[in-house]
């Protein structure tokens, strides 16, 4: 790809560039061409302060965690102040806002309740997500210590750590969530191999066909009583 741009320059295509653009282009042409052997002269080095400002992701092994710590008790206070209006005092979810605690043992049921305690594979995800996206509408407003405290409180609400627990950068990777072993990689190409059929049936493929269910919502603008959705 880069080669072809170089070829264009070599072929003297630069003379086709508009008059006003020419000086700037001509100025950069020489170093530009030289650098092209490795990489084009576009972009600039990212400064360490810049990387630090945006580099907020946290991994299960603890990579990305900031210095800091927070207790369940501190977390309760911060949570009540910043989160409970939507998520409920105990993470039970106010109205239709997401539920953050409970739901253990529901994953095989008709209405699974997927929370940090019942479903999430990694506690690091809670730290990462609360830090990047919560409180909803005022995100990236919490300190590192407050975030540790909130995660400690959320773990406690899910019966995963005791009331006197203090979460820190150091002990974070030791926190294991119970549902972690129940995740596995996409295996559709083996478990759903039957869907690769060379010659699907075209004629008399089944017995008589009957309607077994109709759309519950006949009006495309759903009303107040419509069922609660599970779109995520």
């Amino acid at each position, binding site marked *: *790809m880069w080669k072809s741009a170089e070829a264009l320059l070599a072929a003297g295509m630069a003379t086709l560039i508009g008059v006003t653009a020419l000086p700037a282009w001509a100025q950069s042409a020489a170093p530009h061409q030289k650098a092209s052997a490795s990489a084009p002269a576009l972009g600039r080095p990212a400064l360490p302060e810049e990387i630090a400002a945006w580099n907020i992701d946290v991994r299960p092994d603890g990579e990305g965690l900031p210095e800091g710590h927070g207790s369940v008790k501190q977390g309760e206070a911060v949570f009540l102040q910043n989160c409970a209006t939507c998520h409920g005092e105990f993470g039970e979810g106010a109205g239709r806002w997401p539920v953050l605690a409970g739901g253990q043992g529901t994953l095989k049921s008709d209405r699974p309740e997927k929370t940090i305690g019942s479903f999430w594979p990694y506690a690091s995800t809670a730290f990462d997500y609360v830090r990047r996206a919560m409180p909803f509408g005022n995100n990236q407003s919490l300190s590192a210590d407050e975030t540790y405290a909130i995660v400690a409180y959320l773990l406690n609400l899910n019966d995963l750590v005791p009331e006197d627990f203090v979460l820190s950068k150091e002990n974070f990777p030791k926190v294991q969530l119970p549902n972690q072993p129940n995740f596995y990689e996409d295996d559709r190409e083996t478990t759903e191999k039957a869907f690769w*059929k060379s010659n699907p049936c075209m004629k008399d493929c089944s017995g008589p066909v009957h309607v077994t269910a109709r759309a519950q919502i006949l009006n495309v603008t759903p009303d107040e009583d419509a069922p609660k959705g599970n779109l995520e």
Partner: protein
Amino acid sequence: MSQHSGPGQQGPEKMPSGTRAASLSRRGFLSALGMGAGAAAGGSALAGRALAAGPDPNIVPVPEWSKMLGAGVNVNPYGKPSMFEKDVVRREVEWLTASRESSVSFTPLYALDGVITPNGLCFVRHHGGEAEIDPDKYRLMIHGLVDKPLVFTLEDIKRMPGRVNRAYFLECAANSGMEWRGAQLNGCQFTHGMIHNVFYTGIPLKTLLDMAGVQAKGKWVLAEGADAAVMTRSIPLEKAMKDCLVAFAMNGEALRPEQGYPVRLVVPGWEGNMWVKWLRRLKVGDEPWQQREETSKYTDLLADGRSRRFTFVMDAKSVVTSPSPQAPLKHKGPNVISGIAWSGRGTIKRVDVSLDGGRNWTTARIEGPAMPMAMTRFYLDFDWAGDELMVQSRAMDDTGYVQPTKNELRAVRGTNSIYHNNGIQTWLVRSNGETENVEVG
């Protein structure tokens, strides 16, 4: 809808396909007046018609618009659809989500034709509202396991060599997610409207990664948005280097704000959530980051309580967009069944249509481009006698994958997985033309 035209009428299949959806309301109007579209089509049809009715008031007298000057050229400096198409808009289902800033508005598939989705009708899914980013203040950072951490401006990206144009579908993994437990939403806008298909202009992601120099240990790329969700997804390096794009234009113009202006990621054939909008950061690492959108969400809970993760590819799928609940049949006689098919694994090779709930199938006509990982249009021209129909479509791609029935899917996955519901859709067309979302067995 209770109006049916006579059997001698020349049908809409005589019109160019591109005008079909737009002509629905006009046909209804003509039909209400006892004047089928065929009345204008030619002498033979006219002969039968002339006996039944007087001159068409849309012909005699000569219409206003043929006698008076219309609006000047720049009344709408940015053009708008005809005032008669004002109902063709994205729609939301408010009870689906708790907030409009983390919600979805669906593509009106029932009213669209061809393969390209108009920019203003492309479905919208936000997790933290629509970010408005000044292009002069836009920055894209690449760092992590690279030799040279870099920062790019939008100008830098637009000056890069190797710009490409590619058409791809983008489907949310939760498209049809409301239908796992049975027919629920009545309209393909709501059952299938979390998809769009546009032409992207951009730079291969590989170009940027090569500039930064990915180190040997690098195996994954974290893509991050600049919106208030600071949306993140882990993308395998192999995919990032293969065909992902850093796009700044859609269908020839700058990205729409709701689609990630000024720059979004394009991840062909893979679930829409990975196509990070307002792209601000790319980090190379040796492991996935297990972000909220790849653990709590976008993992597929199966009946045994275990969950598949990293189910990135969107399997082959199709849907008849007309007739459908929002686009009922209005005429007996000639009609066109129109629909779309797509596959994240490759190119659509064939689409079959059934009118009897899947007992018997006819291969439809694929019309227009059939490109890999892009939406493909199919038609089946047919004569409707006014009998009840159970309309289905079944897509096949060039890997040999055949779109399964909903019950086949449920047999493997149960009904709790929310995502990746690519089962065959059934529309029940009643004898009055009214159409409903149903399940069959």
